[in-house]
């Protein structure tokens, strides 16, 4: 077959993927001067100012926290769905995924209604004569929003790996005298590790870089890396600094890709996760 069908895409790819990436790199590694721009690592150095380290630390902490919660909730869920607790597995899987097809902003917005001072939770509490809670615009709300939005990213990769495990392997382990806890610890969990690694990456990265969840549910008081990038481009206009943060993000992604391919082995179809 002809390979010439590639050409439109190649041009598009260079124009809209490769060139923009180089522009980001260019802005990240230069600082403007009167006569144009000079190469410099200044933008990266700024990252180490206490105020930005605090943002970085908060982002990492919240993203990590969300990832752990997603793993704790998601792994058992994936296991149950991959097992035989339900007759119609595909329907269960679909039901699990349907909410994710709803607009991401609307999903996040929904929690406003539930969490706000006059929201559903507080009305319920008031009806029970309990004191109202201030959940919205706290770190807790941000983490909740992350878990809600990214849980499927954790469950689906684990599910897909678990459902591919040969029943024979599990039976063999039982046959060889392992009890169900040992079967899990020595067979199922190690085999599901590639899924866990994908899931963790798929939750951690967007959680680290989101700016919508923190803006809507954190009320703008909790600046995360994503918010920082957004501000640099849309408010402050400091493209250099914004680009340098982006470059750090890309490096993180490349690292996690390397780790993933280490776990999954090469030439897999599922490079998406």
């Amino acid at each position, binding site marked *: *077959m002809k390979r010439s069908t590639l050409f439109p895409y190649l041009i598009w790819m260079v124009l809209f993927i490769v060139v923009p990436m180089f522009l980001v790199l260019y802005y990240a590694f230069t600082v403007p001067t009167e006569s144009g721009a000079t190469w410099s690592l200044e933008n990266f150095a700024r990252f180490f100012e206490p105020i930005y380290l605090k943002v970085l630390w908060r982002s990492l902490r919240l993203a990590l926290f969300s990832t752990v919660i997603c793993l704790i909730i998601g792994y058992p869920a994936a296991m149950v769905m991959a097992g035989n607790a339900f007759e119609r597995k595909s329907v269960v899987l679909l039901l699990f995924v349907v909410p994710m097809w709803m*607009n991401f902003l609307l999903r996040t917005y929904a929690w406003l209604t539930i969490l706000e001072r006059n929201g559903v939770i507080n009305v319920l509490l008031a009806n029970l004569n309990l004191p109202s809670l201030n959940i919205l615009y706290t770190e807790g709300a941000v983490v909740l929003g992350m878990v809600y939005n990214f849980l499927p990213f954790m469950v689906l990769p684990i599910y897909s790996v678990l459902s591919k495990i040969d029943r024979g392997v599990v039976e063999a382990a039982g046959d060889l005298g392992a009890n169900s806890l040992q079967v899990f610890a020595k067979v199922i969990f190690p085999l599901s590790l590639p899924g866990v690694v994908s899931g963790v990456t798929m939750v951690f990265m967007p959680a680290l870089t989101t700016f919508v969840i923190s803006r809507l549910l954190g009320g703008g008081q909790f600046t995360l890396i994503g918010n920082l990038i957004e501000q640099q481009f849309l408010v402050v206009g400091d493209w250099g600094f914004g680009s340098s943060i982006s470059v750090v993000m890309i490096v993180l992604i490349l690292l996690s890709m390397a780790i993933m391919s280490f776990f999954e082995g090469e030439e897999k179809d599922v490079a998406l996760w």
Partner: protein
Amino acid sequence: MVRFLKRSYIYLVFAFLYMPIAVLMVYSFNDSRSRGMWGGFTLRWYVELFQDRTIMSSLYSTLFIGVTSAVIATIIGTLAAIGIHNSRGIQKKLIMNVTYLPVLNPEIVTAISLMILFVFTKVRLGYLTLLLSHITFNIPYVILSVLPKLRQLNKHLYEAALDLGCTPAGALWKVIIPEIMPGIITGLLLAFTLSIDDFVISFFTTGSGVSTLSITIYSMARRGINPKINALSTIMFTFVLLLLIIVNIRQAREQRKGRNGKNGQKRQMDALRTGFGGV
């Protein structure tokens, strides 16, 4: 007993996932100003929604960009997938890695890189930049939907067409494209869905007052609760639900025909998992 516990756990997770949506839907019919209270049934938010010119014009933009970018991305992406399928070695690896970039990069990075490109080349931010950006992030998903179909094909199919008298272009058009059509349609639907769902990239690459639904929702939500958004959510969720049901019936029918078997299931998973784009 264990089975019961397992099921209950899943139902609990489902409750967590569906509760916010259910709340939105119920409140879209609530006549009370105070959101926590139930003030009786009303359709007035729906009426106001359709009278809101900002929302209606952004709905129009969303659909226009969605359809146009999906169609263009599908054409470029399908041709690209065929080309990639037939390339080898380093060339193939390089193209695939660059293709994965927009998929794996945090959306905000893709967004600012495109914004820099447009501002740098002095293209006015607006409809055109929005469209170009959407096509860009849609193409990889089309490629990733079509490639597995191509891999499934008997590798002699193209030669069989030539053998029976087709020219290379004829073989592509009469045999290869029809054979991978299910993948192309999946890619098209996926691209359309991703496009209407996108917020981050649109947010950075739009301008001149052009707003998509996501952007409008964001600016409204930033100002707090708005019952019109509830009404909009209800409509959009119902629409997505219908779309999903149609896609699934289609796929189920196809599977019954025995065309895909396990691969169909896998492809469905691919489509689903690539589906939640907008973060």
